[in-house]
């Protein structure tokens, strides 16, 4: 159905795709696999006509094509469901389904009656009952995703691409999605399915293609592979080499952070736990379970409605980020670009941001002092940057992340909350970051790691809390920590757990 040959796409300074070839057939589910930054999204956007490749050719449905805009690809029958859903929140379900090609009456005007009826029909075919007149902004993420799939159903879709569709939905909803996707395959649609969850790949894919660092690694029949072989293709080394050998253990000291009945609606319903000095505590769960919100509520960047937090033995109940930082609590957020780095400022300014008073003397900011401090961090974390006065925008994800480690370890020595600490970081840098986390724990810092990468949680943590729908549904520690147990807690229905 689609054949890409020798595709190369270059962004300023980065070769995002390097002579990648890829081919998928009608009536198959073809998984596209690779770590963050492997080039999957770039490849998808090339297929979609959103990026124009520097070299290589695209053949679709037997014809050689060179898209100049997403519209051309769409008109040819390619439908892409991006991770960030392309829906318009102020419009209704039906309007979104028919965006750009609404049914019209004889006068050429939009026929709303027919549009709503056909939207209802498409949703019906999906087996998903939604009011076509509901506004997108009032729907859950899973429902929004179903709207995206319904969009694919009303057009003449020959190729459907799903980019990490299960990142935002859970158990039953995911099964429903798989069912729908398989049904479409049986109707002859070519489906490209992107995910990094191996279980899913084995459950639904017919073939799999692996990308790594912008290069093509290989394509296999799913039946010819086992899990370890697939991982080896993805990361280029065995998992055992990645994580530090020792895991810190909970000590007898008093907890560094104690959280009791924390509530921050709508995402955090009731959360209690203790974090000890020197401990690496994992917080697992599906995206949307409320993990990041717990961190924000503790740190003071999101209002709490109830609950008590004790930090280093002292009550911390009128929280603001400023107060948290002053008490030694740091929070390395999930969205490095949006919530972490200041892209317009140099590296030194990024490091000292939470502790400006330390670098202020009678004449104002002590720039020399600041630069020296930043140089220390460059050495300590082996950050690949020419110097503290250089910008952070062009750096790789791993180096950017290390700068944020420099920022927070300098500012906060008691507790660090790390939200997705290795997102968008290559394998080499991951190993370094795991070592940094290990070392910080050894120095007595209590560390809370939020991560969606289960191998990371399993390899790093001595104790794991699992969240679902704003509640902690399980705690595992020591030898009991494995991916299956965590997933069970993460997807178990809350009611059943309580029973």
């Amino acid at each position, binding site marked *: 159905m689609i054949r890409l040959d020798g595709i190369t796409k270059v962004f300023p300074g980065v070769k995002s795709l390097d002579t990648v070839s890829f081919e998928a057939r009608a009536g198959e589910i073809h998984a596209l696999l690779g770590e963050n930054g492997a080039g999957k999204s770039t490849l998808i956007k090339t297929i*979609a006509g959103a990026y124009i490749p520097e070299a290589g050719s695209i053949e679709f449905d037997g014809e050689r094509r060179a898209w100049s*805009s997403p*519209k051309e690809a769409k008109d040819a029958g390619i439908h892409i469901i991006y991770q960030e859903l392309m829906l318009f929140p102020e419009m209704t379900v039906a309007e979104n389904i028919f*965006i750009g090609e609404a049914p019209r009456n004889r006068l050429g*005007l*939009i026929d709303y009656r027919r549009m709503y009826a056909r939207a209802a029909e498409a949703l019906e075919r999906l087996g998903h009952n939604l*009011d076509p007149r509901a506004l997108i902004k009032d729907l859950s993420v899973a429902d929004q995703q179903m709207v995206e799939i319904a969009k694919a159903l009303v057009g003449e879709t020959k190729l459907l691409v799903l980019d990490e569709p299960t990142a935002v939905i859970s158990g039953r909803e995911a099964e429903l999605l798989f069912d729908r996707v398989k049904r479409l395959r049986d109707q002859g649609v070519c489906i490209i399915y992107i995910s990094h969850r191996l279980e899913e790949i084995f459950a639904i894919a017919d073939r799999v293609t692996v990308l790594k660092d912008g290069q093509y690694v290989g394509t296999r029949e799913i039946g010819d592979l086992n899990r370890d072989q697939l991982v080896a293709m993805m990361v280029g080394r065995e998992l055992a080499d990645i994580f530090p050998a020792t895991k810190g253990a909970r000590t007898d000291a008093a907890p560094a952070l104690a959280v009791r009945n924390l509530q921050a609606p709508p995402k955090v319903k009731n959360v209690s736990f203790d974090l000890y000095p020197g401990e690496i505590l994992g917080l697992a769960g599906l995206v949307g379970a409320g993990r990041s919100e717990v961190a924000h509520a503790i740190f003071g960047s999101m209002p709490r409605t109830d609950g008590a937090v004790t930090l280093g033995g002292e009550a911390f109940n009128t929280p603001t980020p400023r107060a948290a930082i002053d008490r030694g609590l740091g929070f390395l957020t999930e969205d490095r670009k949006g919530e972490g780095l200041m892209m317009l400022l140099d590296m030194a300014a990024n490091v000292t941001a939470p502790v400006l008073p330390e670098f202020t003397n009678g004449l104002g900011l002590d720039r020399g002092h600041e630069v020296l401090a930043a140089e220390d961090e460059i050495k300590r974390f082996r950050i690949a940057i020419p110097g503290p006065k250089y910008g952070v925008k062009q750096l790789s994800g791993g180096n950017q992340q290390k700068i944020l480690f420099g920022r927070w370890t300098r500012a906060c020595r008691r507790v660090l909350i790390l939200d997705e600490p290795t997102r968008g970081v290559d394998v080499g840098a991951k190993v370094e970051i795991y070592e940094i986390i290990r070392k910080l724990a050894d120095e007595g810092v209590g560390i809370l790691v939020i991560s969606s990468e289960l191998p990371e949680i399993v390899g790093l943590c001595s104790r794991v809390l699992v969240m679902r729908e704003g509640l902690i549904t399980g705690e595992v520690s020591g030898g009991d920590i494995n991916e299956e147990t965590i997933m069970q807690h993460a997807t178990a229905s809350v009611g059943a757990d309580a029973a």
Partner: protein
Amino acid sequence: MALTDIQPRARRLPLDPSLIIVVLLLAGVVIAGLSLSDRFGTLRNFTNVLEQASALGFASLGQALVVIVGGIDLSIGAIVTASTVLMASVVELHPALMIPMIFGTLAFGALIGFINGYVTIKTGVHPLIVTLGTASILNGAVLIFTLQPTGGVPFWFEEFAYGRIGAVMPISGLVMLICFALAWGFLRYTSTGRAFYAVGGSPEAARLTGIRSNRITLMAYSASGFFAAMAGAYFVSRTGVGDPRVGDPITLASITPVILGGLILGGGKGNILGVLLGVFLISLLSNLLNYMNVSTFIQWVIQGLIIIFAVSIYVHKGKKL
């Protein structure tokens, strides 16, 4: 929910929730007007208000279209001014060109709008700056041409402003209402119209959904220029001359009804009928305050407070300037 449950239900309430505030304010003004002034409620007064509202109506309609796609047009006043001068001075020299010049002036406005849109798209500069620049260039050019009101048009053209159909309906007001109706129908019943909201909601998502965002943006700015020229034609009709200052207050004035109507700067949302109600609200309010002998100066204060009141009430997310 089964298919049959959905079909028969009529379109929600006739009243869009975002219109509630402007409707309530409008009702307040009307009630106050009827109880405070004998003249306010007369048919003659409503005819006059409708006629005088048409300039603001045209300008706000254009502004609203640009705001829906996520932009802003600060050149509306300058286009109004330039249109009046262009039309009146050409027609004075060649009175036979009156009718072609009506279309010529409208095309001129649309062209300036098109340039605004084109420069915005090609340079990536904030529309605030681009349209401010265009306004400055146009105003400069007009003032070099003339510092005084100039030109003249055939007497019959004043019918556009002063003409009444059936002694009640002013022609200009009727044209304005028709323009709003057409814009409403366009935004609601055509795919291109729906695309205005999509582009304003998220230009990138719109592009990836296969909408030609740039084309939509160009259309919105061109329409804004077109309607500004309409307002210019109204002023020429009313005064018979081209006035190099007439458009100055229009630019900022055109924004108030847009905000009152529940549109948000940043785009993607809002009902154009709300803008029309906003135009009526402003026009009736100043009409009423005039009857009550409230000074223009106090009216300014009230206008400023209304803007703050309106924007504070509508919830604003994702603000962009």
